[in-house]
């Protein structure tokens, strides 16, 4: 087992920051190539005219997921040393619902808003201002929100994955998700056709 490299080769903080910067470049490049700098294109997901978001997100997710499953099976990657977000089920359901509203109204998510900003989309700038406001408000309101955030109403289930939750091997879940993704891609193409192929170029 030798990955994550930063753990097994004991990288210094500085190297981690540098590598993260480089990875960020790839991240931003891929997002912009897919057209995620354009808020109208992103918002069109929700009107079934342009399902790029679904295609990109699922392709990305299953690519990385497949890589992780294979690397783990080869004994190269140690998932215990990898970051997997902890599950706070109620807090996260609430958070994701609020984000859903914000996404539909604002047309961006934080990552894509910076991609938009980097290509001079001015509405991205205002979305980012909004982000700062929202985060600031959360910090100020924290004492009242604390129990819901990580206290007794948060639904803290610890660091748990779908396969641990269902008691199966990771490969089983990954295979099901991969097949579902293919189905979702096929479905997206059909839906876009039905709405007249108004994909934003």
């Amino acid at each position, binding site marked *: *087992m030798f990955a994550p490299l930063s753990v097994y080769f004991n990288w210094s903080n500085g190297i981690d920051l540098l590598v993260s910067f480089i990875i960020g470049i790839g991240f931003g490049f891929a997002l912009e190539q897919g057209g995620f700098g354009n808020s109208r294109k992103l918002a069109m997901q929700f009107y079934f005219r342009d399902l790029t978001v679904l295609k990109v997100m699922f392709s990305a997710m*299953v690519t990385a997921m*497949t890589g992780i*499953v*294979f690397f*783990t*099976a080869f*004994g190269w990657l*140690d*998932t*215990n*040393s990898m*970051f997997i977000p*902890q599950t706070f089920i109620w807090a996260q359901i609430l958070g994701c619902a609020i984000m859903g509203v914000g996404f539909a109204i604002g047309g961006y998510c934080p990552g894509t808003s910076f991609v938009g900003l980097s290509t001079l989309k001015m509405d991205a700038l205002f979305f980012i201002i909004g982000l700062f406001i929202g985060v600031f408000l959360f910090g100020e309101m924290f004492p009242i929100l604390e129990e819901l955030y*990580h206290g007794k109403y948060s639904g803290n289930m610890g660091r748990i994955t779908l*396969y641990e939750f269902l008691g199966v*091997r*990771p*490969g*089983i879940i*990954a*295979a*099901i998700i*991969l*097949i579902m*993704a*293919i189905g979702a891609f096929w479905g997206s193409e059909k839906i876009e056709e039905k709405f007249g192929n108004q994909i934003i170029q």
Partner: protein
Amino acid sequence: MKLENKQIAVYTAILLAIIMLFLPGPDPSKVNLDLQLMAQIIGNKEDHVTPGELSQWIIAGNNDYQLIDIRSKDEYDKGHIEGAINIPIENLLHKNVITDELNHDKKIVIYSNGSSHASQAWVVLKGLGLDCYILEGGYNGWNAAVLNPAVPSATTDDEILLYAKQKAVAEYFGGSNIQVQKPANNAAPVAPQKPQGVKKKKMQGC
């Protein structure tokens, strides 16, 4: 052309999915040593269970822990703590023992004669993600503290109460060297207190 590419991609994906169905998951016997966390636990002595605490658990009939005597079978047969099962240290670290005989949902308390073997085993079991504790002082410490409680030299009320409790516990376990002299203030033996679980430090998120 484009259609063919798509077909290749779909077939490759289906093939990968089928392979993944049969791939093994992460190896449960691979040890993950989070050194910083372990250092913190050791420094805060959260890796220990005292004989007093363990005796309370036994008396109260708790079943949320698994007590393991990691000495040799001979030593175990000569005398062991009530409720302990015997897994000599050289067997303890085998993959099938770890998966089959250790209860991953319960607290695991291990002890040897002193503390050194138990401490070594603790590092490994902790690295495997088990909720593991060392009995402070080991079997020797258990004998001294629980079976033969020392009569306090000073006679404050607290110490007398404590000694009385210890005597009651010792009698429960059939300790051999019970000092019969009564403490000066004639405090009657008090029933053991409700057992306190060992507190776990909350892990900081990222």
